[in-house]
């Protein structure tokens, strides 16, 4: 094994890290953010299958480029592998997942159970969301639950962690140690209320926030200015949501069909004018990253490249946000590597080894 990586438990990559003073979780993302490093998170496209390899293969392409991976909870109200399931697989392999919890599908009983289950599996980060309405997804006839909202969900998990109690007041024997996140959308009305709303989320327990896709940097700058004036950026790590647009056509479709994503006309014009729209979309994303990373109060980016996951590494690399730092990378263990090399040698190198020869070479 090469020198041990920075945020890794020597006893096993799947184990939680040593607790640090002032940290509420034992995960990698909180360490990166609290060290003041520019964090990069991304989203795993959840498979429509029961094959764990699908999750591993989809996580593998982010190796060495991101600090944490969002395990989405039926995003857009479309049915996929559950976030708890994805987290179970990812934590086994040592990845740092951010478990998304949407209020749409589960009531408070199920949610609190999942929080404990997730934390027990080694999930160190949880993102509390309201969730898209069921009308947006593939099963519009489903019953929308919305028992909690994102704010009361944040508060519920915070109470579980800090007070060691369920919402009912019943005691937990071991509280979940999690780094709590929330989502903010500075690009939807009521614009005046949005920074104040962020303050409410911080009061409820948010320690980091990921924003909706940012395509309008001036609008985001105004939001951040207000958030700074209110003193929010000192209490919360803001990760700006960015992502590549595949083409002008996709951009137009998103604009008219996905509520809450604001794409200015200038962006569409720029894409339409380009020779290779996909490449231009990627370049646009990099340009936006380069602008937002300079905004005071921004602690990282959240790259959402739905169905373009292969570009995440390039986007992160070309924007240079990591400044030469390499996030934790899944590496094969030394003993496993020896066995693999040896097998490869025996099977493919066409050699006949005798015991006598082996003893000779060993000396």
């Amino acid at each position, binding site marked *: 094994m090469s020198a041990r990586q920075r945020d890794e438990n020597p006893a096993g990559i799947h184990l939680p890290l040593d607790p640090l003073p002032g940290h509420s979780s034992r995960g990698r993302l909180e360490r990166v953010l609290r060290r003041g490093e520019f964090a990069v998170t991304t989203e795993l496209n959840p498979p429509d299958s029961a094959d764990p390899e699908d999750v591993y293969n989809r996580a593998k392409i982010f190796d060495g480029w991101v600090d944490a991976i969002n395990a989405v909870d039926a995003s857009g109200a479309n049915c996929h592998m559950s976030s708890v399931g994805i987290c179970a697989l990812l934590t086994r392999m040592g990845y740092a997942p951010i478990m998304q919890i949407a*209020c*749409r599908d589960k009531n*408070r009983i199920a949610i609190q159970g999942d929080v404990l289950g997730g934390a027990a599996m080694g999930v160190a980060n949880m993102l509390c969301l*309201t*969730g*898209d*309405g069921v*009308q*947006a997804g593939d099963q*519009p006839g489903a019953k*929308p639950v*919305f*028992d*909690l*909202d*994102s*704010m*009361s969900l944040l*508060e*519920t998990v915070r109470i579980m962690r800090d007070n060691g109690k369920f*919402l009912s007041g019943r005691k937990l024997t071991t509280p979940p140690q999690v780094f709590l996140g929330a*989502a*903010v*959308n500075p690009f*939807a*009305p*009521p614009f*005046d*209320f949005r920074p*104040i*709303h962020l*303050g*409410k989320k911080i*009061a*409820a327990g948010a320690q980091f926030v990921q924003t*909706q896709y940012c395509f309008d940097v001036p609008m985001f700058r105004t939001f951040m200015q207000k958030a700074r004036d209110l003193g929010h950026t000192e209490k919360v790590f803001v990760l700006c949501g960015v992502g590549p647009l595949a083409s002008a056509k996709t951009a137009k479709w998103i*604009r*008219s069909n996905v*509520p*809450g994503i*604001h794409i200015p*006309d200038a962006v569409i014009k720029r894409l339409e004018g380009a020779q290779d729209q996909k490449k231009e979309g990627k370049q646009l994303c990099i340009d936006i990253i380069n602008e937002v990373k300079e905004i005071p109060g921004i602690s990282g980016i959240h790259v959402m490249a739905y169905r373009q996951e292969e570009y995440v590494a390039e986007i992160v690399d070309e924007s240079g946000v990591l400044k030469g730092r390499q996030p934790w990378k899944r590496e094969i263990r030394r003993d496993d590597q020896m066995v693999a090399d040896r097998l490869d040698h025996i099977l493919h190198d066409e050699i006949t080894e005798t015991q006598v020869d082996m003893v000779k070479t060993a000396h």
Partner: protein
Amino acid sequence: MSETQPTVTQATLVKKAAPKSDYKPADVSPQRRVQRSFAVRLWSIRHSRLLEWFYSRFADMFLLLHPLWKGIGYGRVEAPIKFVEKRVKGFMFDCRMCGQCILSSTGMSCPMNCPKQLRNGPCGGVRANGNCEVEPDMPCVWVKAWEGSQNMVNSDKILTVQKPVDQSLRETSAWLRVTAQAAAARETAAAPKTGAAA
């Protein structure tokens, strides 16, 4: 901009796909089937300051009547009061009788009318024209709540983080609960004083 584009919803598509005489179960959402006009609700939000003033007088009056409610028995007055409350608040705010009214903290815009029943602020799906993600014809309850709250004296009450809805209190009178709680609080506040005097 998306404000200028007409929003084509599932309901519109279904409506256009067949003549009026056909059976179209999903031509409107359940929400719209219950509530077709928002005029009164929006009036209440525009006059949130007046209603805030009125409600505080009204709550005081209810508290004054506490001996009466106690005399008759809160259990017995519950049904008639709820009957009135449901109709009055139903007309004014499209009340859903959650039983734990927070209208004073939400600019007189009832948060239970939000399809996601959010009690702490808007979701991220608000349309650029300020309408709801789920109900494209309905102004977002929280966009209106923010407007309403800005007219009110206690405009910062919107900042309180609300507890999750207690579903066991649905279809009960919020007026009586608030009164009973205020009376109980008054009694506990008065109790140590009388103790000291004695």
